[in-house]
């Protein structure tokens, strides 16, 4: 009896996944995005990962121009492009602070920081690989951006109507977002039109600014209650894609804005010289942020503890699969071991070569330089692992990644160990951590996309490891070029007084000065962590992460995001859950694509204008 595969069938068409075309396109496009976004991030203060853009452009190039691209090939392309691009946030959050503090790092010193970034990128990816099963297969985290990219990738097979809905979302997002970003472009030295121009026509011009709508002002709330929505279709779309679970994020923001801040004002816990309008900003720095970051840490710790049995089971299958049957889903564990074995010595080497003179204070001041920096490298690597989990959980649950908070903690940790004057070492580890956590969350987001379109995890993991190291080098080189250009123009290297103000690095500068001045509210971080742990005992372990995240991130974006969550719930109630998923997801994926693409285009124009 014949039950074998019919040999008559034509030789099976190889399903295109990892191809030379996809890799070359993605590395070039990722490098281009990295340079453009590094510059734009230093100038206007925000970055984008660009998975949606890479997916759309990938389809255009691989399928449109080359006529070959499959869904999985484009997925590999966007995986590589974002791996190369995403590290710029880590560099621009941290490295410019050295120039802001007047330390004037030399090129070799920057090269060592870039080396730490390369190590961070590799560690970030390899550390998070064993957690794929936990986060995607078992916890089923949503990763809204990853879901949006999957919706884009699937659009050719999902039917014309869904593609039209996605396109509609893209167009609407571009139209809504255009006046937000347009003013960054200058014509004849004048910024172009923005929502702020429209706002000036209103009786109260403060209600509508270029990027926000002050609903609190509109409905007459007192100024200490900041009820302001950012105009960002991307956040709205991400909120919709998260759905009901995102309401927990809103809860933290509501606690901070509607309970903590007004109570602090009413009971005189804020300086009396502070006006009511200054209360939200003061409270954010004084207690919302440290409490929020603490809660996030406590919540993440509970998440890890609660997941241990599942993690053990996942690791068991991870290990055994390497030995038996069928090709493995994951890269083998030895990649992780090799990365750690090579990464920790390289981190040590970079820190050791960067240090200058004797330590001044710090917990490890009694040790010689070799054991001191070796210990710091080990602690740094362990912290990178834990922070990678935190950031990936946050991204998975909400699409927000509190990288700047983790950078802040890293710098504080290293300054505590090495001494408050070891800023260069602290920034080196801060950069390595930021790059690592960016890569970790991007890896998980890409793996979520891969899961939804059926990509093989090990292929995505391998291409990311092989290309992610490029990112920090490109970002540091771009930063170096910008600094040289600013110096040539006769101004400071970076920061106020230049086109590249580096707003995020200015926030880190304040923190470093705070540590050096003994102003860090360590107790608040501790109380926040305790609350985060306790929150995790009840409903679900990661609750502290969600609540803490929104206490610490800018409330304007959280409110718009929350509006997206509420819209999802309302649509599900009215039209049914299936309808809300079937049509809402492509539309909101379109919103994410539209804003990201427009931001990228405007960044490009800003870059060309210089």
């Amino acid at each position, binding site marked *: *009896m*014949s039950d074998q595969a019919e040999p008559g*069938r034509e030789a099976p068409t190889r399903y295109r996944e990892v191809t030379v075309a996809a890799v070359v396109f993605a590395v070039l496009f990722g490098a281009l995005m990295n340079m453009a976004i590094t510059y734009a991030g230093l100038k206007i203060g925000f970055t984008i990962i660009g998975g949606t853009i890479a997916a759309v452009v990938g389809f255009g190039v691989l399928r449109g121009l080359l006529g070959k691209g499959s869904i999985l090939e484009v997925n590999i392309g966007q995986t590589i492009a974002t791996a190369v691009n995403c590290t710029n946030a880590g560099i621009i959050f941290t490295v410019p602070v050295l120039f802001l503090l007047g330390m004037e790092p030399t090129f070799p010193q920057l090269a060592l920081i870039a080396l730490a970034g390369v190590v961070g990128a590799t560690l970030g990816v390899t550390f998070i690989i064993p957690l794929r099963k936990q986060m995607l297969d078992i916890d089923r985290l949503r990763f809204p951006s990853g879901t949006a990219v999957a919706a884009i990738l699937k659009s050719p097979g999902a039917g014309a109507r869904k593609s039209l809905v996605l396109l509609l979302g893209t167009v609407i997002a571009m139209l809504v977002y255009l006046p937000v970003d347009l003013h960054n472009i200058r014509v004849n030295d004048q910024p172009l039109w923005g929502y702020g121009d429209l706002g000036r026509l209103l009786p109260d011009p403060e209600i509508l600014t270029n990027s926000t709508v002050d609903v609190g002002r509109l409905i007459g709330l007192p100024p200490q209650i900041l009820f302001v929505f950012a105009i960002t279709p991307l956040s709205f779309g991400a909120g919709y894609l998260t759905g009901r679970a995102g309401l927990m994020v809103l809860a933290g923001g509501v606690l901070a804005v509607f309970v903590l801040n007004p109570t602090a004002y009413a009971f005189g816990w804020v300086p*009396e*010289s502070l006006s009511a309008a200054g209360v939200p900003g003061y409270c954010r720095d004084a207690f919302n942020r440290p409490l929020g970051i603490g809660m996030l840490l406590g919540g993440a710790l509970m998440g890890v503890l609660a997941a241990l*049995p599942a993690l053990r089971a996942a690791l068991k299958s991870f290990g055994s699969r390497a030995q038996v049957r069928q090709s493995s889903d994951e890269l083998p564990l030895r990649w992780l071991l090799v990365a750690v074995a090579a990464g920790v010595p390289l981190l040590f080497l970079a820190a050791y070569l960067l240090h200058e003179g004797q330590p001044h204070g710090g917990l490890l001041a009694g040790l010689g330089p070799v054991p001191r920096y070796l210990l710091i490298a080990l602690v740094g690597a362990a912290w990178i692992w834990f922070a990678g989990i935190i950031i990936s959980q946050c991204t998975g649950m909400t699409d927000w990644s509190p990288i700047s908070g983790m950078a802040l903690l890293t710098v504080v940790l290293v300054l505590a160990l090495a001494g408050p004057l070891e800023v260069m070492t602290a920034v080196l580890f801060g950069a390595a951590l930021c790059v690592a956590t960016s890569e970790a969350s991007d890896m998980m987001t890409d793996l979520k996309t891969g899961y939804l379109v059926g990509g093989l995890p090990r292929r995505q993991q391998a291409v990311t490891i092989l290309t992610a190291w490029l990112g920090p080098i490109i970002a540091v080189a771009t930063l170096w070029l910008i600094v040289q250009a600013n110096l040539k123009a006769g101004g400071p290297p970076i920061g106020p007084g230049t086109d590249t103000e580096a707003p995020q690095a200015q926030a880190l500068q304040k923190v470093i000065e705070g540590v050096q001045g003994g102003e860090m509210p360590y107790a608040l971080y501790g109380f926040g962590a305790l609350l985060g742990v306790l929150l995790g005992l009840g409903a679900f372990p990661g609750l502290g992460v969600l609540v803490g995240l929104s206490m610490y991130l800018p409330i304007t974006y959280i409110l718009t995001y929350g509006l997206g969550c509420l819209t999802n719930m309302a649509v599900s109630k009215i039209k049914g859950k299936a309808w809300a998923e079937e049509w809402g997801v492509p539309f909101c994926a379109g919103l994410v694509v539209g804003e990201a693409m427009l931001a990228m285009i405007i960044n490009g124009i800003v870059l060309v204008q210089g």
Partner: protein
Amino acid sequence: MKLLGIGLVVVSLAAGALSAATAYLVPLDLPTAEIEGLTLGADAGGGELNLVGAHAGERNPPLLKKGQVLTLAAIATLRDREVRYVKVNEFSAWRWPGRWSFAGAVAGLLGGAVVLRLASHREVVAAGSSGDAEGPDRALQAIREAVDGLRREVAGGPVPKAELRALHERLREEDRAHLDAFMQSRTHLTSRLGPGRVAELQQAAGTPEARGLVEAVRAEMGGAEVTHLDTFLQARAALAERLGPANLADLPNLLVLPRAEQARLALILERIGTLQKTHMPAFVEARPLLVARLGLGGYAELMDRYAAAERQINRAWSAAADGVPEEAVSCLDQAAGLLDEAAARLGGKG
């Protein structure tokens, strides 16, 4: 009960956050010795500007700036101006005004966690005993059936071994020889002519229209290969005669025609699309029930297999959308095996 738990957690969280916010505040009614020498962590004093012509909300400049040390004179000035609190850089549990309310909030959060856990346990038990929603067993079974059905319908390639075996057992000895001859010749013809032509032959066999087609194929093949065509036609005719049309219809993998490629791809997209909207989310949403039933470790082992199957199903969809049926069919085959493993894990511990 759940509402009570949520209420307790919300109130305790708010109380805890409010109490924690006062950690660095020092009430100025504390004994002077406890305050003297501390460093201000924020500006102190000021208050509303009560001058004629001042704007509403305009404030006086601070009495003391952030970073100043609280001396006896400074403390006296602040007390004179009836400043209630100052923020300092140094923390002390004994000075902390909100320490007792924070302790209460911690107790409240613990209590709320216990109540929520109890409520959640009750919900899971209730959900397990009610048959309203699609349970995980039914959902998984439905997914398996759907994948198996789809594999049968799109099979232009190998016939599943189990099905052929079952068919063999149903046939008499002499009919088994016809079946084997039919399968072998069909394989040879497909390799020579492609599945589309064989499908046409299979469909037309026994009808008046078949003659022209058979002659054309015979001319095209020529030589010894023609014997495969003859065997194919004879075996098919014999099977049809022995089994009858009704029984033929029961043998979909064997005698139902391979579909045209586009139709196969469309079918894969449609069926998997439906699965992704119905049974697959239903299975995933049963997580609390499954965790309660299998434990976290058992649930993880189950989901390890299920998720691998789901990824193969998603890959089948992508391959179908990209027009690569071989990959789609292969993924469905792998998904079927993984779903069997998932079912074994679910059933074994159920």
